[in-house]
Each structure stands twice: as C-alpha cells, then as structure tokens.
C-alpha cells in the first residue's frame, strides 16, 4: 500500500470549487438560488447516425431531439460522449470528432468548438472522453492518458496532466482531481490523483478494481464504479460500486451504471450474460444508502438501461434506455432511445424521446435571484 496515496485520500475533505456538476463560483452568494431547468441527454450515435443532444425541458415537460443540430445547422460531431453545464455555457465532449463543443446553455448556439488535437497534438488529443469543471476551467480526459485543463474564458490549455491508461470519468475533491483509468477493460485499471496545487500526479492500482469508469465523492470517501471484466464465456463479472480505502476496495453492491444523490446511490445492474431462472437477461435496479449501508428496491425499469442520473438540485431520477428492435427484441442503436423519469422510489413519471445511443445525462442549472 502506498502511504502517500492513502494520505492524499485522507487529505481530501470536501467538494468545494470542483464538482462534476459544475457549480459556477462567481455566481455563488447571497440572493441567488440554484435551479435546474432541464435534463440534457448526450447520444453517441452510430456509424450512420452522428452524435446528438436531446433536451428535456422541465417547464414544458417535453423533450426535443437534436437540439444542437437544430440550433446550429450542423451536427455535433461523431460520437458524443459526455457533457456538463458550467456557468452560462454548456460543454459537450465529442469523442470521435476530437472536439469539445461550447454552447450557450439557453440558446444551444455554438460559442466555440475546441479541437482537442489543437490543444494537445494529434498523438494525445484524440478521443476526449469525460469532463468536469471548476475554478474557471474545464478538465477533460483523453484516451492517451491525459487530463487537460482549459480556461473557460480564453479556451487556452492551462495544464496537462499525465494520468493512467485510458482514463474515463473524473471527480474534483478540494484541491484534487481523481481520475478513473479504465485500461480499456484490459484488467489493469488504476486511479490517479492530480494535486492541483503543485501539479503532481499519483497513479495507483486499487485491489479489487480492474476497469474503473466513474468516480464519486461523499462523506470523506471516494467511490468507484468498476465495469469489471469478462470471464471465458464473456459474462461480465465483478462490475460494481466500490468504496476505495487506501489502495484497496470494498464492494458495496453490484452495478453497471450508478449515480449519487444526497448520500444515496441509484443504480442498475445489467451485467452482460447475467440470466434469470428462465434464461432472460437479468437486470436489477436499486438504491443504496451510504449512511446505513442498506439496499432498497427501485420499482422502475427500462428496456435496455444505458445511463442513470439524478438531478442534484431537485432529485428527479432519469434512466436512459436504448429502444428495442421489434424484429429481434435486441437493443436497436439505429433508433431513437428514450429517457424514463421516475420518482425517488421508482414510480414511472414519464417517457421522453432522446437521440440514438444515450451516453450521458447532465442537467441545465442556473441561478435565480431570490429576494
């Protein structure tokens, strides 16, 4: 066990300034209230469908697909993978096109297209994957073991950190950014800790974590979503939400997708190859409460769960799904998907149409003046 890495974790205290949901520092203060106006659904697309963005408007209760294309007359790019709202702007990470599209969060008009290969060069800049924001910067991972920091006013590269193999999700904790290095599922995944004060990076393998893709921080502890590995018959094994303690881990529950809301993990476990008694694909839904360490059933379900997200402002629960192909009852990526909204206990509220192959859900926050 590496003591320094452990110390790094212990030093991390609170989520200030950096968060995956992107609080905008300059608007924080008296007389302002955070409100969420809607949910944005990023769609990866397929080899014949471009990446896309759908928007669920809370006020109208309706969703619109391809909002970026409609507002700009051009496509988002090939393979849109992640996004967030930070301040007045929305940032969408487009993996295949190697761009980060900066968009006005109200009009969806493009403000700037950041070419990640211009910032990082061809050899490090392709395949941007995930993004967080804070301190007036966005931080994104690329498949080349890089976390890049970009100023949100000048769009200039301010820092570049070398992390582990095939980094995916990241989380900001105090003056640190933790990064899930997936190793592209090859089994040697690791976690990196970037010290933003001195720019140093520590990368450690965590026992019991092989394919980390997403990180959460709560109650002074770091949690990782591990996509696990595949056995000889291609069953997905070891996928779950794990608490990181130093360089070891404890599995809290089995899951393939999860989101954290006020100390509760909302999750879906849809491991490839898992079958119930009748031979049907086995998918479970649940809520895990950190304080009690207990699992509660989640009543809702979708056809082919792709993403889960809870609006941190109002607790609305969304699960994105691929639609099924009527010819063969398998997921159909060449078809619009949908997002199903649930109450916190899993009662279905409404279905919204989204674009093809949903890859991320994020929320459109702003600040409203209160007197």
């Amino acid at each position: 066990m590496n003591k320094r890495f452990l110390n790094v974790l212990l030093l991390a205290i609170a989520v200030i300034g950096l968060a995956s949901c992107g609080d905008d520092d300059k608007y924080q203060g008296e007389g302002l209230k955070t409100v969420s106006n809607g949910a944005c659904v990023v769609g990866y697309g397929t080899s014949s469908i471009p990446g896309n963005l759908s928007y669920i408007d809370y006020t109208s209760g309706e969703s619109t697909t391809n909002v970026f294309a409609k507002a700009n007359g051009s496509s988002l790019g090939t393979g849109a993978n992640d996004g967030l709202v930070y301040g007045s702007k929305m940032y969408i990470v487009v993996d295949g096109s190697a761009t980060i599209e900066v968009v006005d969060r109200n009009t969806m008009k493009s403000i700037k297209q950041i070419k990640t290969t211009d910032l990082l060069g061809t050899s490090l800049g392709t395949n941007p994957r995930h993004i967080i924001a804070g301190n007036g910067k966005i931080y994104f991972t690329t498949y080349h073991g890089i976390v890049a920091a970009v100023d949100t006013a000048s769009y200039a590269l301010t820092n570049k950190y070398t992390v582990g193999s095939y980094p995916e999700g990241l989380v900001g904790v105090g003056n640190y950014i933790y990064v899930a290095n997936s190793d592209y599922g090859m089994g040697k995944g690791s976690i990196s800790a970037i010290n933003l004060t001195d720019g140093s990076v520590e990368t450690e393998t965590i026992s019991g974590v092989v394919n980390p893709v997403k990180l959460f921080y709560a109650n002074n502890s770091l949690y990782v979503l591990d996509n696990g590995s595949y056995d000889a018959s291609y069953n997905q094994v070891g996928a779950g939400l794990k608490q990181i303690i130093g360089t070891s881990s404890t599995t809290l529950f089995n899951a393939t997708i999860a989101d954290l809301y006020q100390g509760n993990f909302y999750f879906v476990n849809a491991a490839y190859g898992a079958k119930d008694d009748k031979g049907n694909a086995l998918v479970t839904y649940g809520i895990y409460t950190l304080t009690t360490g207990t699992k509660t059933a989640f009543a809702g379900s979708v056809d082919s769960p792709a993403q889960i997200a809870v609006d941190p402002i109002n607790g609305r629960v969304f699960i994105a799904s691929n639609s099924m192909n009527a010819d063969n009852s398998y997921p159909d990526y060449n078809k619009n998907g949908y997002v199903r909204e649930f109450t916190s206990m899993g009662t279905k509220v409404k279905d919204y149409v989204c674009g093809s192959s949903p890859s991320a859900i994020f929320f459109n926050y702003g600040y409203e003046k209160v007197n």
Partner: protein
Amino acid sequence: MPLVSYREGACFKSCSQKTCLCNLIFSNSRGRMRKILLCIILCLTYDSSVMAQSDSILLDDVEVIASAHKSSVLSTAPVQYLGSNDLLKFGVTDISDALHRLAGINILDYGGTGGMKTVSVRGLGSQHTGVSYDGITLSECQNGEIDLSRYTLNNVGGVSLAIGDNDDIFIPARQAAYPAVLSIETLKTLPLDYRAHLLTEIKTGSFGLFNPFVKYTQRYSNSFVASVSSEYTHADNNFPFTLKNISLITHEKRTHNKMDSYHGEVDLRWSINRLSNLWTKVYYYDNNRLLPGQVVYYTNISGQSLHDKNAFLQTLFTTRSNNGNLSLKVNAKVNWAASIYKDAVYPGGIKDASYWQREYYTSASLLYTPVEHIAFDYSLDYAYNNLNSSLATDTRPYRNTILQSLTAKYSVNRFTAVARILHSVYLNGEKDGEGSKDMRRLSPSFSLAYKLLENQDLFVRASYKSIFRAPTFTESYYYLYGSRDLKPEITTQFNVGITWKQNLSNRMDFAATLDAYINNVKDKIVAVPYNMFVWTHINVGKVLVHGIDASLIASYHFDSQQTLSLSGNYTYNKCENRTMKTSEYYRNQLAYMPVHSGSASLSYENPWVNMSIHGTGMSMRWANNEHYEGCNIPGYLEAGISIYKTIDIGGKLTLRGDILNIFNKQYNIIYMYPMPGRSFTMSATYSF
C-alpha cells in the same frame, strides 16, 4: 469501458452451353457419335479452364467473346460476360466499374483505388456471392467477403456473372453451392511460336496512381507454355470531396489513404497428351494500405492501416476418354492469407487485430455423356479451412466441408433442362473449444431454356434453386459472444426470363435479356448487440427480394471499319425486410440496396480514334435497415469518357486516356465513404 469495439466463369463459355450451341450448329449433321465428339471437343476447347491444346489456341479472342455473348442468350439461367475487348471498347476503368456494367450486381465501394469493394447479387449479401479466379472459387472463411479491389484489369481477360444454376454442368460442387458466382479470368495468352512474348502496361492518373504491369509468355515446346506476370500499384488516393454536414458544406480531402500493392502470378500449362491438360498457377498478392476510415465530422485523423497478404497454388487437371463420352476435371488448391490491422490512434495497440487463414481444397468432376441429348456430372469437393487471430478470445476455429453434386442435363434442339442435387456437409471444430453446430443439407435446383421459334434466337428460361449459407467464422465465433448454435441462412431463388438475339439487317444486330426474379431468404443471420460493444449473431431475419434485370447490347456497322455499339443494363431490386409483420421495419428496403441501378455505354470504333462514353448510377439507399431519419444516401449518376488507339509499331501499342466522373459528381456508395470526383487516367500498353 468497452472491451472490444465491433467493427468492422471460368464457366461462362460453358461446356453445356457449347453442347447446346453444337446442337444448333450440327443439328443436321451426320453421325451421332461424331456430333457428340465434336461437341465435347468444342466444349473442352471453349471451356476457359482448358488450355494449351493445339485446337484451343487457334481460336482467336473475338470468336470466344462472340460465343460468350451468345451463351448469355442461350443459357438456362442469367449469365453475363465482359471480355477484355468489351472492357476496352466500353471504357471500363477498373474492376468496380466492370461490375457496375452487370445487371443484378450491387457493389459496396469504400472509395478510391485502395477502398474495399465487395459485391452482392440480387440482394443476397456479399457473403453469399461466390467469386472464382481462373476456375477455382476464392475462399474467405473469416467474414466471407472477397475484396475485389485487388484485381486490376490489366491481367483480366474476362469477367462474368452467373446467377443460379445454368446449363454449364461440368463445374466443381462448390460453385453450385452459391446462389451467384462472379468469375474472373486472367488473360490467356497462348502463342503458337517459340519466341518470347511480352505484354507491358503503364498506367498513371490522378491522386498519385502509378500502375506498371508486365507479363512474359513463352512456349517452350509443343506441349508446354509458361507465363509470368508482375504488377505494382501505388496510389495516394488523396482526392478532394465535398462534405455535407446538415447545412454546413465544407471542402475536404481524403487523407491517410495511400496504398502500395504488389501482385505476381506464374502460369504453367502443359498439354500432357491429346486428351489431357495440366495448368498450375502460383499467385501472390501483398497490399499495404493506410485506411482513412469513415469520414468523421471536424477531424481527419486516422491511425488505421491494413496489410493484406495472400498466396495460393492451384492446379487444374483435365482429361477425357478416347471416345469422348467421359471427361474428368480435378482441381487442387492451397491458400494462405493474412490480414494485419493496426490502429495507431489507440494506445497499446488495443484495436489491433491480425487474422491468418488457410485453405486446403480439392475437387473432382466427372462428366458423362452416355447418349446424345443427355449428360451427367458428379462432382465431389473437399475443403479444410482454419483461422487464427491475435484476439485474446481466439479459439482457432476450423471447418471440414464436403460437397457433392449430381447433375443431369437433357438437351434437344429447342429445349434444355438441367436438374441438380447438392449435398453439403459442414463439420465445425475449434482447437480450444467445442466448435459451432455441424450442418448437413440437400439442396435441389432446376433450370430450363426453350427456344420459342425454330429460326429465331428467342429463348425463354426458368430456374429454381434452393441453397443456404453456412455462417462465417466471424459470425460463429467473434464479437464477442460466439454464436455457435447458428443455423444456416436459407435462400430460395426463382428466375424467369426471355432472351433474344437478332440480326436486324447486315448492319445491325442486338442481344437482349429480361429476367424477373424472386429470392426468399429465411433464418437470415443478423448481428445484434448486447450493448454497444458486445455483439452476437442470431438467425432472425426474413427477406423477400423481387426484381427485374435487363440487359441490351446492340451494334450498328456503318461499314467494315466503323461500328457504333450500345450496351446497357438496368436492375430493379426490391429487397425487403419481412421479418415481423407487426414491426415498424416491415417491408423496409435493406441497407445499401438501391431499388434502381443501371449503366449504359456507347462506343464508336473507327480507324482513327476509338471512343466511348459511359454512365452508371443508382437510386437512393439507406445506411441502415431502420431507415433512421437523415441516414439516406442520395442517388447518383456519374459519367466518364474514354478514348483509345491501337497502332502497329512492330508490336501492338494501345494508348488510352480516360476522364472519370466527368461532371465531378460528389457521391457516396457507403455512408461517409466518399467516392472520387473528376479524375484522369492514362495508359500505354505494348505487346509483341
């Protein structure tokens, strides 16, 4: 995190057709035995796979081609042929252009000289279209798709397409196992003298094309002819294209698209005696290309490369009995192919994949003609294929294939009928696993042709064929769950047609064919996802294909030196998903299948400069079976012009110039794989 992402005749101058031809020619001649013997000799001499006989080498090319055109009229099932003279006359520029000139064929072309080109016939899919090279079917056990971009036309003597079973019955059983076979024949040069003969060609053109070719042929004795050919192709393929991104139009250039390929062949032809021949071919092909990949919005970075290598040795032995009523054909082939794919963009070579496959194949066909009007063929084929790869999931699959066909043909003056039964056995195994399901099946087929009027070349024809496709190794074992219990994909073909050949005057002649067809596919093998990255294959689809193929070739002779020729084909191909009546996709046209396609060319041969103009086109296609909004690929029409002149300077020198896509039409055949716009090629061919 994804683990692995999903990615991606020989017999046209058929013996039996000649038998039919013989019957026409010799119907009033004397003795029965004499007639049969003559027919068989003619068969064997016309048969492309027989060589170096003193009688065969006397035939000049023109005669052979003329007879091939005849055969497309006489055949019991659709057969189309383009000889090397047609290729020149009608301004055919490359193999893909040649295939566009054949009715019923659909080419998937990834663009440019280095872009992969595969064919499917009448909506049956490229895995279910056989491709034979000098009489022996090419095998591709990995994914079942033959990339035709490797065949440049400078060594091609003819290209033909046979759909269903025709009256050519003296064929290996494996050829009968396909619903359609595309045959590529190399140039057959069989000099009568003993001096060295050289055929050289240099071709150059836009986008860095450089293609020198040389073929050396010499007769060493009365019975032995050897030839060696060698060819190199370089192309940068950095052609410009227009990219439409909703309403944003940008002008882009294809990059990372360079190719360097080498291809060499050695042919040894030995006339063992008056009755027996042996032809052995050694083939090597090596193509190292960068792949630009699908066009991606806002970036053109690609790190993909593909290095293909293929070597084979094939030998063909033919013999016949003294009295001529028994003929034997024995084929053997050893094939090795490697495909080395790399993607430098992904660290750690995570997407790299190399595949190596081998085939050991042998076939024997026995043709027996006991009495006039009746012939039988029994063919027995055995093949062993195996595949290994660099994938972590590799299990080294292999397959033993035993095919037997028994064919009977009855032919009287105005009527020809053929019946065949094919017995197939596929025994599958894996070195590190259990292997996919074995398959055994009987497949019948029938075809017939009837001459409607005694003294007019007006025929009607009908054919039926039931056939199936065994899953490829990719379908059975890869990406990522193996699908080892896949059933075969079953196809039933029906064809009715009318063919007419007529000399309208001594100045004008034409030949026309019109066929209507129905193909019914069930248990279609379809790739389905567990998620974006883990796919498997299932038997679920039903497809109903119906359509019409039409072809026309007409010539008008102004005088003995000036001829105007028109050649055209049109295909109507409705290729519908009929899997589930309640599905929103019911009756959707399958992805990449145009409903309308066709080509036309007009050539003017004269003593000064020969020229042709030609065009090909197709209607819109969908990039996916779901017809997702915006995934339609617009139809196109493109045209080219070709001029050439042959002069005698001691040898024969042909100079040719082409303008391709003369109106600079921007189009795609595959979604986001642009085709080149206007371009130029020039070639000089010299032979002596």
